[in-house]
């Protein structure tokens, strides 16, 4: 097994006194993988992603990024796409590109411009004039144009049209790099399944199943989508 990009050790998080959203969760993700973090609503996928991204603080447990405990310097290794628009709407697309270039040494501006051109997004457009789906595409372009070690994509295709989904998935696969890993959370398992190398099902604040997608499909004779429906049947 290659060096882990991410290690979560007995990670616990609760927002209020009561049932924790994450309950002593353990998870290890090796480098060079596209990893699907899957689970029903409210199972803690976004909370886990936010903890890894550093915008939530765990109640207990530890997170290691590239074998180092998570600190402010880990931000340089992580490229995070939240599930909601998070840029100031008065900025223009090209200003955002300048902003990313200023702060992230690993940002590839040329790649970002190429991706914007492919997605037919005008670089001089102000964010407030763009639709929600287009804003999400801009965010994804910025996040994927970095040469990070760990990409955290929270619902990256939820708000975009099917044609753009294909482009986005191809972009994610195209960015494949043996030293980096991509974690994707989504409900659109059928769309994302072909891109995934590994997956984990989350439930009750823990990882309840984890494995290699091809091996599981071969062993069970079922797609991930079918397996998900079976495990989380209401």
């Amino acid at each position, binding site marked *: 097994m290659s060096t882990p990009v991410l290690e979560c050790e007995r990670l616990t998080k609760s*927002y209020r006194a009561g049932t924790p959203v994450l309950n002593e969760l353990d998870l290890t993700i090796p480098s060079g993988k596209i990893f699907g973090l899957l689970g029903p609503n409210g199972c803690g996928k976004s909370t886990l992603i936010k903890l890894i991204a550093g*915008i939530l*603080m765990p109640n207990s447990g530890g997170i290691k990024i590239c074998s180092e405990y998570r600190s402010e*310097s880990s*931000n*340089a290794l992580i490229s995070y796409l939240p599930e909601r*628009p*998070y840029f100031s709407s008065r900025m223009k697309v090209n200003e955002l590109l300048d902003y990313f270039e200023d702060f992230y040494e690993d940002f590839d501006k040329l790649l970002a411009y190429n991706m914007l051109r492919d997605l037919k997004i005008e670089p001089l457009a102000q964010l407030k004039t763009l639709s929600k789906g287009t804003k999400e595409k801009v965010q994804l372009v910025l996040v994927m144009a970095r040469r990070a070690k760990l990409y955290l994509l929270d619902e990256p295709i939820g708000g975009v049209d099917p044609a753009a989904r294909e482009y986005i998935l191809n972009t994610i696969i195209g960015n494949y790099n043996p030293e980096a890993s991509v974690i994707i959370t989504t409900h659109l398992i059928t769309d994302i399944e072909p891109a995934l190398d590994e997956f984990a099902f989350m439930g009750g604040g823990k990882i309840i199943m984890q494995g290699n997608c091809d091996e599981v499909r071969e062993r069970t004779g079922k797609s991930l989508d079918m397996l998900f429906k079976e495990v989380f049947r209401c």
Partner: protein
Amino acid sequence: MLKKCLRYDLKSVFPYWIFGAIAMLLMSIPGGLALRSQQLHTGDTDHFPWEIFVIMLVYFVGIAFLILTEILIYVRYYKHFFSDEGYLTFTLPVKRRTLFTAKVFNGVIWNALTVLVILVSVIIMFCFMPSIPSDTVPPEVTEPIISAGWIFAYILEALALIIISAFSSVLSMYLIITIGATIVRKNKVIVTIGIAYGASIVTSILSYILVFIGMLYVASAIALFPEAPSNLGLLIFLIIALVIAVSFTIAVALGLISIRIIERKLNLA
């Protein structure tokens, strides 16, 4: 990284602030004309005092400009740190301490520039007047101070006090916003206003106590010198220095508390 953060912070306020600055500077022209007319018509009972309304208007524009600056600074602080924009701010490869420091400098710089613009406006207004009125301070107060050369020390102290007061004011508001956004869970606005009032009262009481204790020390120090009671210049200097030291201590404490909360308690749900 501090320079980069500060540059983007300054850029985010400038497009809105500049309108207030231009309005303030433009208003100084009718304000100056009104002052000139008022001085020329002094004692003229038949003259309708329209100048009062113009001067009032200039005054209100000045107040609005100050409020606009405060709103811009504190709204930007809240939005960058505690709204959805925080998802970007706190995932940048920048230390939280650096992000906060940039915000503090941003607040102080815009406050200082606002005061400067208002000062320039007042100077412009006075330039329109045929003669500038001046109130005289009793010579028994000014002479010992000027002759002893304290006036330069006071100018330096006044500058230091203005700068530290600006830092203290910005830091106290940042702390209140930080507490309201991170620790308060229900009725955030009401509780935050309550915290603001409470913090203001506590800070005032603390300042009075510290200044009082300090003044006792100053008084005892002065008493050690035989010529001390007549040394008014030194006494004033020491009291101002004491106020500066207290303001500085409070400002540093406020800043450290905010940084600690942001580093340990921040949870962007």
